[in-house]
């Protein structure tokens, strides 16, 4: 057991902290929000130059060969600044699917394009009616000469600008059947695809995507036909671990902002932080932050756990723990700020909303408590 960073991890963290410190002030971020893509393509190229886009990929494909802890450290730094670029969608979600299910040929083709910053991807799995159910897939692909794809995906993170879409579709079985799902790599500009992009509540971008008789070549299939669920589960787990780390970064910033506000805001002739009731609330926020941090670490470490049941269970524990911590810290950060915390002009509300959005991705607290409850022996 070892909580220390390796030398590589220390260097990585330092360079990211430096980059974001220079480029990601609240004001700078506000300008990025109004860019056409909703994020900075210039910064995306800088991530590529720093090697961040290759972080979890094998060196054979031009990657950095990093592990889950490296991604956690990066996402935590991203979380401190509410980074807008499609790292989660491209590198974490789609990257995990590619690494787990892609053939050598597929990986050799697409991963270098990701690493160099040329190509972005989106992971198009959840559907509007499915809420959090991973097997509630109505989008269908039929194999004739090639594949014919029909259906719709909802709240696809960065699906509005992605070059390639990884799309799950039913190739056999009924709705809710754990068998019969397959993954496809789809060029986002294919005929028959309609995308409606929009902002989520935290300003990051997503899309509704519909597929109407989209023709895919046979080699668009990613991984095993009819057996994509284990891959999808691991992609979702990677998403949970990554967003958990981002939430920790967000809580760190919120906690620091709140302490700063308590120290400086004067009411009745003294800093409001002299109120013991507020001091204790801040202490409870710290307790929650440390609880959440511990759970984000758990999620990260469990990505490598070979036993699927043990992995799923621990990641559900972590999602609940981070979700509850995030809720407590973000709600109280607003409360302790008072009116100013309610304004769009002030950063706290933006962190609040990102934590809120992440809580409602990949299963919320109730969903994962339900899984844990099912699992009790």
């Amino acid at each position, binding site marked *: 057991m070892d909580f220390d960073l390796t030398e590589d991890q220390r260097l990585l963290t330092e360079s990211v902290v430096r980059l974001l410190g220079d480029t990601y002030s609240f004001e700078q971020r506000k300008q990025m929000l109004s860019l056409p893509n909703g994020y900075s393509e210039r910064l995306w190229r800088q991530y590529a130059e720093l090697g961040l886009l290759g972080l979890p990929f094998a060196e054979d494909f031009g990657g950095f060969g990093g592990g889950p802890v490296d991604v956690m450290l990066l996402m935590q730094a991203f979380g401190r600044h509410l980074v807008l670029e499609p790292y989660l969608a491209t590198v974490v979600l789609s990257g995990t699917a590619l690494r787990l299910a892609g053939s050598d040929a597929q990986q050799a083709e697409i991963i270098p394009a990701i690493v160099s910053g040329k190509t972005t991807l989106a992971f198009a799995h959840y559907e509007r009616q499915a*809420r959090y159910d991973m097997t509630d897939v109505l989008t269908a692909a039929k194999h004739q000469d090639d594949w014919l794809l029909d259906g719709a995906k909802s709240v696809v993170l960065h699906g509005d600008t992605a070059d390639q879409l990884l799309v799950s579709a039913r190739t056999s079985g009924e709705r809710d059947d754990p068998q019969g799902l397959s993954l496809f790599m789809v060029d986002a500009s294919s005929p028959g695809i309609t995308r409606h992009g929009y902002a*989520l509540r935290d300003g990051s971008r997503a899309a509704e995507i519909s597929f109407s008789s989209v023709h895919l070549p046979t080699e668009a299939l990613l991984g095993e036909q009819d057996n994509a669920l284990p891959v999808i589960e691991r992609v979702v787990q990677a998403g949970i671990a990554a967003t958990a780390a981002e939430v920790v970064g967000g809580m760190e910033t919120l906690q620091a902002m709140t302490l700063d506000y308590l120290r400086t805001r004067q009411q009745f002739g003294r800093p409001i932080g002299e109120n013991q009731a507020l001091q204790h609330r801040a202490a409870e926020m710290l307790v929650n932050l440390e609880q959440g941090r511990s759970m984000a670490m758990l999620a990260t470490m469990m990505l490598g756990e070979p036993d699927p049941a043990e992995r799923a269970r621990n990641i559900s524990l972590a999602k609940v723990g981070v979700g509850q911590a995030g809720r407590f810290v973000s709600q109280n950060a607003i409360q302790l700020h008072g009116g100013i915390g309610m304004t*769009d002009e002030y950063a706290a509300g933006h962190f609040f909303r990102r934590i809120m959005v992440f809580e409602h991705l990949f299963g919320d607290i109730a969903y994962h408590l339900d899984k844990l409850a099912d699992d009790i022996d």
Partner: protein
Amino acid sequence: MDLQLAPEEVAFRDEVRTFIRDNLPPNTRDRMRLGYKPSKPEIIAWQRILNAKGWATFNWPREYGGPGWSAIQRMIFLEENLSAPAPELLSFNITMLGPVLIQFGTEEQKRRFLPRAANLDDWWCQGFSEPGAGSDLASLRTAAKRDGDHYVVNGQKIWTSTAHHADWCFCLVRTNPQAPKRQEGISFLLIDMKTPGVEVRPIISIDGSHHLNEVFFTDVRVPAENLVGEENKGWSVAKYLLGNERTGIARLGISKAAIRRTKEVAREVRMNGRPLIEDKAFRIRVAQLEVEAKALEIMQLRVVSAFEKSGGKKPDPLSSVLKIKGTELLQNSSELVMDVGGPQAMPVWQQELAALTNEPALAPDWAAQMAPAYLMLRAASIYGGTNEIQKNILNKAVLEL
């Protein structure tokens, strides 16, 4: 002791309910059921309908056009209006300015302002908070200097709800900066928002809405006849206004509507392949909210009844309990509604919907206002005295620690 509504109170509730059902414009009702806030024209239209009925001035004395209701009737009326859901009466006009003018105003001020306030011909806003004066209101610094038969006002107000809609503003200003105590030397002034030197700047809230404003006053000349009460005695006017009957403070009707809505939507979404409404854990969460709502309902009846018995004189410190529990329930119920929506509650759909009127619906219509309502209600435990301030009040007024 009898905790049931008396038959005549039940009859009154049914009368109110029926009137609202029959007279509330259906468009307004349908949009509000989906969680949208009413627009300015909708608010005005509904207040005028109620005013024509004689109900808009629900808490004014009979001689000023009030309906002469008991405290319990007033509570029933407000709750029915909220849970319809219908637009609320503009509280600046009805529960704030009205009683203040009736108590402190000159005959001329009453004649000039009260009927227009009742009918929402004038939209009023409240200029109290300042950047350095939030919970600590008495530290306000906006200055009004006497110059002949005018005051010249300079300074800044903040968190001014609906100032961008407002025709008039009632303001606390400092008329004597040399007063020995900070609470002395403050005056209560009515300011026409069209006066030169008044500037309103929007504050966008975290739910994306424009509700709050900053208001800047630069050499604004206000006729001295717009002073309410005595010069330098505005603090007692403000205390009267803030300590006024807080019948609706728990805003229980909104929470009840949210609980109803969470059950409705839970029929439309799934969990584990079944409607969410069938999930036991979800039902337990709803049941817990219903416990809170019922406790609040009884507590509210107790506070209102005690207020009535005291002859309407004594503001009950237990109204701080109502504020605390009421806002907790508002926040918890809006949170559950949003959780039911899940990922579908996360997108900001508005712009897209507006741009795509001929497209098939981009999202379920129930989802659009879930997150905004949740976000907006984070303020519930902040405005009107934070819940921490309410605990200080309980501590002073009841616990004597």
